[in-house]
């Protein structure tokens, strides 16, 4: 006793499927440009358990974001002062503090970068190994099922 209107109603004017497809294309393009290689996204995605469970490609995406975000920028940077008053003096003070700190922080952060890089490489390697092992096992299961069906 189903109402046929359940299946036939479509709102005129907005094709959301086409719109979402367009959004997904834009996202794919931006993804290639590295727009989403951001530790903040990796952090936000921790809550998206559905994708962690179901979407194989998500692990790849997560690892890419992790790799992009793991390298800490330890290069020199421009030192500025927002307060107009005593600005040149404050900039000089900040520069001299930075020159003192740089020697120690460089050593610290370069080691941290090394650890981060090794960690991400390790994760990628584990992912590759597991993916390949699962594919082999799936192929084997399929083969065995085929043999059983043939009996």
């Amino acid at each position, binding site marked *: *006793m*189903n*109402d046929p*209107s*359940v*299946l036939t*109603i*479509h*709102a*005129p*004017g*907005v*094709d*959301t*499927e086409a*719109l*979402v497809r367009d*959004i*997904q294309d*834009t*996202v794919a393009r*931006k*993804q290639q440009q590295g*727009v*989403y290689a*951001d530790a*903040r*996204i990796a*952090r*936000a*995605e*921790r*809550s*998206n358990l*559905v*994708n962690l469970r*179901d*979407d194989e490609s*998500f692990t790849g*995406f997560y690892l890419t974001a992790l790799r992009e975000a793991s390298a800490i920028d330890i290069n020199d940077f421009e030192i500025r002062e927002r307060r107009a008053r005593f600005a040149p003096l404050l900039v000089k003070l900040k520069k001299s503090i930075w020159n003192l700190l740089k020697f120690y922080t460089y050593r610290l952060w370069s080691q941290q970068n090394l650890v981060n890089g090794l960690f991400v490489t390790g994760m990628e390697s584990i992912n590759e190994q597991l993916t390949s092992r699962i594919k082999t096992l799936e192929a084997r299961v399929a083969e065995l099922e085929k043999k059983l069906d043939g009996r």
Partner: protein
Amino acid sequence: MPAARRIAFICPRFAEQGTVGGAETLLKALAERAAADGREVEFLTTCATNHFTWENTVPAGTRSIGALKVSFFPVDDDRDVTTFLTVQGRIDKGVKVSRADEEAWIANSVNSRALIAYLREHIGRFDRVVMGPYLFGVVYAASQVAPEKTVLVPCLHDEPFAYLSIIHDMFHRVGGLMFNLEPEKDLALRLYDLPERGTVVGMGIPDAPTDPNAFARKHRLPNPYVIYCGRREVLKGTPILVAYLHAFRERTGRALDFVFTGSGPIDPPDELRPAIRDFGFVDESDKRQAMAGAVAFLHASVNESFGIVLLEAWLSRTPALVHANGVVLRDQCRRSGGGLWFRHYPDFEECLLRLLDDPSLRQRLGESGRRYVLDRYNWTAVDRRLFAALDGGAA
């Protein structure tokens, strides 16, 4: 089969005051419509209001609430919670459990011997017994009292519990099935290998006049905002929304706030706290005004069988943004043309940027959603489907 003139409705909780939940709201609304149609209706429920503790907080007995005669029965206090949680944990992890374990799980779920005894004693008075949702002990036990008179309103989700053999048997046992949406029905037919049966009924969503500026004006909200209404739980996807909005604000620098109505903890990171506006329980009118002023209604749950709040947001002309893995909500967005869906954060960011930057898109989506709800979920249309389903046994 006789017309359904005398009907018992059964739901583990009764939707009043602080007790909110889609299934409870649905069962109560259907019972009220049947009563308004001149049918003799009795609503059987438990004394519990909290769906975590199931403590008996409402006095047992019969009261008239609105047009309904509501009978409250105590939840059994001798359930073995350890057994229940142990088996539930295994089911939840996707472990195949034995039939004996399944039965131990449902026996130690929320049950009420008093309610079942009352139903057995008075079953002769009822032409139909309408009950739901599917995964509670009290509903499971009630479905065995007079299966031929039973119409199950399952509110079915694609979740590990739905795959149990006892649930399979319940779907085969009952005389009729009433679904909220086509995807829910498709899921049931697929999971339980049923022949074409059951009726899609849904629920009417009353319209209410709204002013998109009223809520922001009343509460002096300085920034545009997105909104979520309902329970805040992991299963409802609220942690994802909070995490995504945090990332969105940091990455885009947009001053976008997040309005919440409903109950439960939100637990945002400290930096996001100033952007979170938690209004707790608000009345229907305030909720609709809040929805009307929002850039989008967000819903990241992947376990919905209907999505009442989504439909209310559309009536307020507010577009929706839902999780792509939520089959039902995504299907509603697709059918209505009233909302978009995201798979992960990048999709979420792009969707939200478009909604923020394109007021005409927002308006078109909101209007499409509103038209869909007015056409499909007005009470006249729902009543027609409901009464036909009740009289025909929803077979």
